[in-house]
């Protein structure tokens, strides 16, 4: 066997992609922060910020091993050992095959996925979540939900010669999820639904207006997410090659399709195309193309995105029918968009664009791939929803998950962080040290 030689082009692209994916989480903070009221914007953004802190530390201690370790040779989780990244500086990435990029670059890249997934959940429980309870939730949820599910989906095992050990269950079953439609978006969406049910509705929900306080912040956030998502999707090729190019192009055109789809629904239904609709549509498209971005042709990406925009714009109304306060539509956008994108591969997937891809229904491949996709969707959604429900209930019954009613009415920024986001007038802020 020839010795692997580091590829500096691939490594450079992966380093850049890693930084791009990190940027998505502050981007998400803007996206969510703009959608809440002035009294809770800082808390909304802090839920994302603290997630960066907590998950990064867990990852370097044991998270990476629990998600990608192969020594346990289990389809359900990696190894129960310390990540020990310091001794791996000269190692190459080995995930179903050896990649000529440093293991530490792969570990850093995957860390960013582990960060944004719990951060996505926070949108479901805006304005009312006790900050310490959220921090504890993030640490436990990442450990018992994200790390194992990432192993199921993303761990292709340690391949040495003809032997591969430690392949994740769904990866081994042939689930096609290029960048995390199941492990990231369905996972976060199902958890968001569970937490919205556990925490209950905000004070005044459906009675008083809860208008987004800053749509420019929302648009800024969606722009940063879109930009960072090129690292998320095209970086998942783990190389600077044609597959990365395909993922890049599909990410762009699916997002464009979804943006148009969402505002078209609004124009027809409400009479006006809104900026919130454009931003939301873009994110719905990014979610839907995430699993499919390197398995479908660009024309199909447009169709997947366009349908995602329509589907998600209609899905965000569900919470009013069923009566759960998923405040910023994590379910309507990430769960629904993630399910659609994951299943869409079963229809639009083709080996023409990706040599390891399988043909879907529209390419004469039959329903075998669709079945695998449905299995992945069902397992991740079911596991995430049930475990989050139990974890959320446990936190609620022990330390409490919600802030007191008065504090919520007064504004969570003040009660949880002792800060206010904006100086509204010059005369209202007296005081001294």
């Amino acid at each position, binding site marked *: 066997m020839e010795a692997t030689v580091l590829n500096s082009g691939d490594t450079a692209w992966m380093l850049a992609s890693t930084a791009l994916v990190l940027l998505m989480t502050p981007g998400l903070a803007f996206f969510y922060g703009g959608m809440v009221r002035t009294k809770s914007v800082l808390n909304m953004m802090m839920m994302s910020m603290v997630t960066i802190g907590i998950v990064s530390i867990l990852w370097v201690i044991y998270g990476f091993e629990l998600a990608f370790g192969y020594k346990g040779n289990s389809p359900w989780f990696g190894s129960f050992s310390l990540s020990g990244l310091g001794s791996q500086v000269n190692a190459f990435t080995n995930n179903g095959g050896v990649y000529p990029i440093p293991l530490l670059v792969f570990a850093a890249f995957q860390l960013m996925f582990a960060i944004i997934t719990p951060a996505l959940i926070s949108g479901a429980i805006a304005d009312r979540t006790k900050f310490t309870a959220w921090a504890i939730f993030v640490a436990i949820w990442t450990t018992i939900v994200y790390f194992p599910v990432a192993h199921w989906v993303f761990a292709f095992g340690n391949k040495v010669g003809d032997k591969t050990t430690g392949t994740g269950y769904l990866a081994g079953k042939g689930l096609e999820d290029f960048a995390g439609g199941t492990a990231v978006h369905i996972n976060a969406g199902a958890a968001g639904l569970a937490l919205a049910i556990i925490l209950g509705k905000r004070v005044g929900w459906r009675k008083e207006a809860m208008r*987004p306080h800053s749509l420019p912040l929302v648009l800024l956030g969606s722009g940063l997410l879109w930009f960072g998502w090129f690292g998320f999707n095209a970086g998942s090729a783990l190389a600077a090659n044609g597959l990365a190019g395909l993922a890049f192009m599909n990410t762009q055109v699916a997002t464009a399709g979804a943006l148009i789809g969402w505002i078209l629904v609004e124009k027809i239904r409400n009479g006006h195309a809104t900026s*919130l609709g454009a931003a939301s549509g873009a994110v719905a498209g990014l979610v839907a193309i995430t699993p499919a971005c390197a398995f479908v042709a660009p024309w199909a990406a447009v169709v997947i995105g366009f349908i995602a925009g329509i589907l998600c714009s209609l899905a965000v109304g569900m919470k009013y029918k069923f009566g759960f306060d998923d405040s910023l539509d994590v379910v309507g956008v990430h769960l629904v968009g993630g399910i659609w994108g994951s299943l869409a591969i079963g229809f639009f997937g083709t080996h023409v664009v990706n040599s390891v891809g399988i043909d879907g229904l529209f390419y004469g491949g039959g329903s075998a791939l669709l079945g695998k996709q449905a299995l992945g969707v069902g397992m991740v959604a079911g596991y995430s929803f049930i475990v989050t429900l139990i974890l959320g209930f446990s936190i609620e019954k022990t330390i409490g998950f919600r802030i007191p009613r008065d504090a919520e009415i007064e504004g969570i920024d003040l009660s949880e962080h002792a800060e206010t986001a904006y100086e509204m007038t010059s005369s209202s802020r007296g005081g001294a040290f």
Partner: protein
Amino acid sequence: MKLITAILKPFKLDDVKNALQAHGINGMTVSEASGFGRQKGHTEVYRGAEYTVDLVPKVRLEVLVDDSEANSVVDVIVKAASTGSIGDGKVWTTPVDQIVRVRTGERGVDAI
């Protein structure tokens, strides 16, 4: 002495201010206000959820004048503020007992 209070459409403020200055009025106070009268609010839609916004943004302009000038100043404001459509606002006067200029201590009409 009278306090004249006017509720105006925000974009008419400059016209009214210029007309008052041309009429010889040298001071006024302006603040943001919101409310509704015959002009109702509007509907906003966020992700398909419709909100009725019934308070309309207005500005409140206040001027202190001598009794003899009150009527003509009200006329100047009404003329400058009018567009003829619903929502042009209201102007009213209130009797004022005492006025003091803080810097000099002048009282009454001298303090206007």
